[in-house]
C-alpha cells in the first residue's frame, strides 16, 4: 500500500506572510496612480478638443481640493514607483562590462535615478521657461 499523502499548503493571503511581499504589493499598487493620473491627462486632452469652455472648466477642476489631494498622492506614489523601478532594473539587464569589470547593481540603479531626476528637473525648467 502506498502511504504517501503529500500535504499542499494554501496560498490565500500569501502576500501578507513576508515584509518583502508586502513591499512588492505596495510598489505594484502605485501603478494604479500611474494609470489614474494618465486618465486625468486624457480627460484634459478631451476637454481641450471640446473647446475653450471645457478646457477652462478642466483647469478649474484641477485646482479643487480633492483633485489637488489626488495629484499630491500621485506624486508621492510615482516617486516611489520610480525608485523601486530602478532598484529592480539591474535584475533585468544583461551584464554590462566597463573597462573589463562588470557594472555593479548599485551603479546601474544610481545612474538610472540620476538620469530620472535630471530629466524631470530639465522638463520643469523647460515648462517654466515656455510659460513665462
Amino acid at each position, binding site marked *: 500500500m502506498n*502511504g*504517501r*499523502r*503529500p*500535504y*499542499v*499548503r494554501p*496560498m490565500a493571503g*500569501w*502576500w501578507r*506572510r*513576508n515584509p*518583502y*511581499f508586502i513591499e*512588492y504589493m505596495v510598489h*505594484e499598487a502605485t501603478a494604479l496612480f500611474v494609470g489614474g493620473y494618465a486618465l486625468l491627462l486624457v480627460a484634459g486632452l478631451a476637454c481641450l478638443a471640446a473647446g475653450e469652455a471645457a478646457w477652462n472648466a478642466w483647469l478649474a477642476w484641477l485646482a479643487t481640493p480633492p483633485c489637488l489631494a489626488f495629484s499630491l498622492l500621485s506624486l508621492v506614489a510615482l516617486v516611489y514607483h520610480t525608485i523601486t523601478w530602478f532598484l*529592480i532594473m*539591474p*535584475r*533585468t*539587464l*544583461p*551584464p554590462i562590462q566597463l573597462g573589463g569589470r*562588470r557594472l555593479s547593481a548599485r551603479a546601474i540603479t544610481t545612474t538610472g535615478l540620476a538620469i530620472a531626476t535630471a530629466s524631470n528637473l530639465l522638463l520643469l525648467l523647460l515648462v517654466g521657461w515656455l510659460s513665462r
Partner: protein
Amino acid sequence: MSARNIEMTVLRYRPEQDAEPYPQAFTVPFTDDMSVLQGLQYIKDELDASLAFRWSCRMAICGSCGMMIDGVPKLACKTFLRDCSPAGVRVEALAHFPIERDLVIVVDDFLAKLQSITPYIVPREARSPAAGEYLQTPQQAALFEQFSACINCLLCYAACPQYGLNPRFLGPGAIALLHRYNMDTRDAGQDQRMPLIHAEDGVFNCTAVGYCSKVCPKAVDPANAVNLNKMESAKDYFLRLLPGARSRA
C-alpha cells in the same frame, strides 16, 4: 562556550496519522557554533527520533536542507541558532511545495523540470577525445559562470509567489540553469530549450518580485536569467512577423 537554550518550533506532518501539519516546540541547548540543522539533529538524536528532514553536506554545497526559517527560505546548515531570535525559531518545510513528511518536501515537480531543460552541454559537432578539450576564454566563461553556481536547493521556488500560485511555472532555478547552458559557447542546444521559455508556463509567469535572487545562497540571481529571457522571448515573438524571418520552433 556555555550552552544556552532556544525553543525550536517545528512544523510536523505525519501523513499516516495527521490530517494536517501542526507546530511542535522543542527546547534545544545550543552553542555559538551550532546551525539550525544541528539543532534539528539534536532533536532527532535526543528528543524525538521520528522527526524527518533532509540534509547531507552541512556546508551549503548539497542543497538538501532548504527550509522556511522564521518564514524565510534558508539553508538550515548556513543559518546559526545564535542569529535567531532568543525568543525562539520557527522551522517549516519549504513553502510552495507539497509536504511529504515534517520538513521533507516533494521535489518530483522540480526534478521533471530540471530534466526538461536539457541541463548539459549539447556539442556543436561530434568530437572524439583525440580532438582535445573545448577551449573557452575567461570572458566567454564569465557569461554563464554565475548561473552555474546553482545547487538546486529550491529556496528560489519557495521565494516565488508565482510558482506557489501556478506550480506549472518553469520557475527561477530551472530557468537560471537553462540560461547557463544557453550562454555557454560550447553548447548548441538553445533551439531545444527556448520553446520552454516561450511557453504558456515559461518566463512570462514571472512578475519581477525579485525575492528569488534575494534568498539565493549562491548569488546566482535567477531573476536576472528570467528577465533576460523575457527579452529573448519578446524578440522571438515579434521578429517572426518580419518578412523573411525564420519560423518559430
